[in-house]
């Protein structure tokens, strides 16, 4: 059966299916799956010929239709309640839900056209109101700030200055200067790989202290793996990584 569809663009596979169902005036609860699948495939083929974009969603639906078609040929499956299961049921449900929202979309569009006739106005604040400055409630602003407090704060500041302590940096914890020589680190790890035939990643990390060192170690391991000098195994997620060296002497 040839299908005269002027290739129109559908929102998606469900939209196309709805179109085919409407066009054939089919009862959505009793879809002749063979006919619909044929027509659907015809459309997809036509789309491909016309160089239209056939997105993966259309192909997934094609697969679903063919799957349903196959199941229809097989003896019917029976569910827990002993009822026969219709392989089309899930698709029908999907189509109905989609159709419902499509219908609601039209309903909303009507409402929108109606609401478009109501107009609003721009904000228009009179100059006097715009220029008005809210007076400051000084007693509220000061709160418990007294002259004594003001004096204390200033004394504190002077003291800080005397101590020549940077008020910001003094609040930081201890910062250790890190000196990592990347090249040296890389050489060290490469040497380790040559010296050990099999070792764990954790074992290698034991000698590394800072975050930067660990990151460098990890990167070197990745690099070595890429070069094929080592092999890596990890049995479980977050488990230890076992490294086997091919270059070990």
């Amino acid at each position, binding site marked *: 059966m040839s299908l005269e569809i002027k290739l129109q663009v559908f*929102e*998606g*596979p*469900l*939209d196309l299916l709805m179109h085919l169902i409407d066009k054939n*005036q*089919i*009862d*959505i*609860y009793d879809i002749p799956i063979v006919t619909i699948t044929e027509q659907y495939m015809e459309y997809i083929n036509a789309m491909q010929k016309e160089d239209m974009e056939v*997105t993966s*969603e259309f192909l997934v*639906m094609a697969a679903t239709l063919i799957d349903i078609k196959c199941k229809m040929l097989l003896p019917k499956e029976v569910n827990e309640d002993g009822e026969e299961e219709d392989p089309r049921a899930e698709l029908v449900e*999907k189509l*109905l*839900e*989609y*159709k*419902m*929202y*499509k*219908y*609601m*979309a*039209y*309903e*909303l*569009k009507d*409402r*929108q056209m*109606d*609401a*478009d*006739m*109501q*107009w*609003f*106005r*721009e*904000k*228009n*604040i*009179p100059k006097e*109101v715009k220029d008005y400055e809210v007076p400051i409630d000084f007693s509220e602003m000061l709160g418990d700030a007294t002259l004594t407090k003001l004096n204390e704060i200033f004394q504190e500041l002077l003291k800080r200055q005397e101590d020549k302590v940077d008020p910001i940096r003094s609040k930081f914890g201890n910062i250790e200067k890190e000196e990592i020589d990347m090249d040296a680190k890389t050489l060290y790890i490469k040497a380790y790989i040559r010296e050990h035939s099999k070792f764990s990643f954790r074992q290698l990390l034991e000698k590394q202290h800072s975050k930067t060192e660990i990151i460098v170690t990890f990167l070197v391991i990745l690099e070595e793996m890429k070069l094929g000098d080592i092999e890596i195994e990890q049995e479980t997620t977050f488990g230890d990584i076992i490294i086997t060296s091919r270059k070990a002497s």
Partner: protein
Amino acid sequence: MTREEGASIVEAILFTMGDSVEISALAKAMETESKEVKKYIEYLKEKYSKEDSGIGLIELESAVQLCTKKEMYEYLVKIAKAPKKAVLTDSLMETLSIIAYKQPITRLEVEKIRGVNSDHAVNRLVEFGLVQELGRLDAPGRPLLFGTTEEFLRSFGVRSLEDLPAIGTVQVEEFKAQAEQEINVKLDI
């Protein structure tokens, strides 16, 4: 404060602000209870219902806003430029209706119902100010949840989400009847 005075203040505030104003904000400015403000709003609604009023009042969830009456449209278009409204394509309308009825909803759920990736549509609706992020779902990947905005209510003449056109089994039954009728028609030919 008399009802007339109260109503005049609410009117002045709404007129000046143009935009919707929360009833609680009105109450605060007027140093009174929201309950009282609602009385003034009722008074205004009655006043605006008269023939000599070109203005109306719409309620949006817990806020109110002034607007022109629909009957005035024909005169307004003659003198003023129609406010620019976002043109919603079918795919945007579809996505919007799903979000409106199923909110809060994730992108993935919208996609499941439509059968196609809907990220672009959702993003456009957010750009148009009709849809907003509501937070994140407490599930793997913590996907964003979307819902409609106040602008949605205004644009679609809906007072609150409860006011959305009813949806449910009735429609489904109607579809069924329609489908059956269509088949009969076919047979009749």
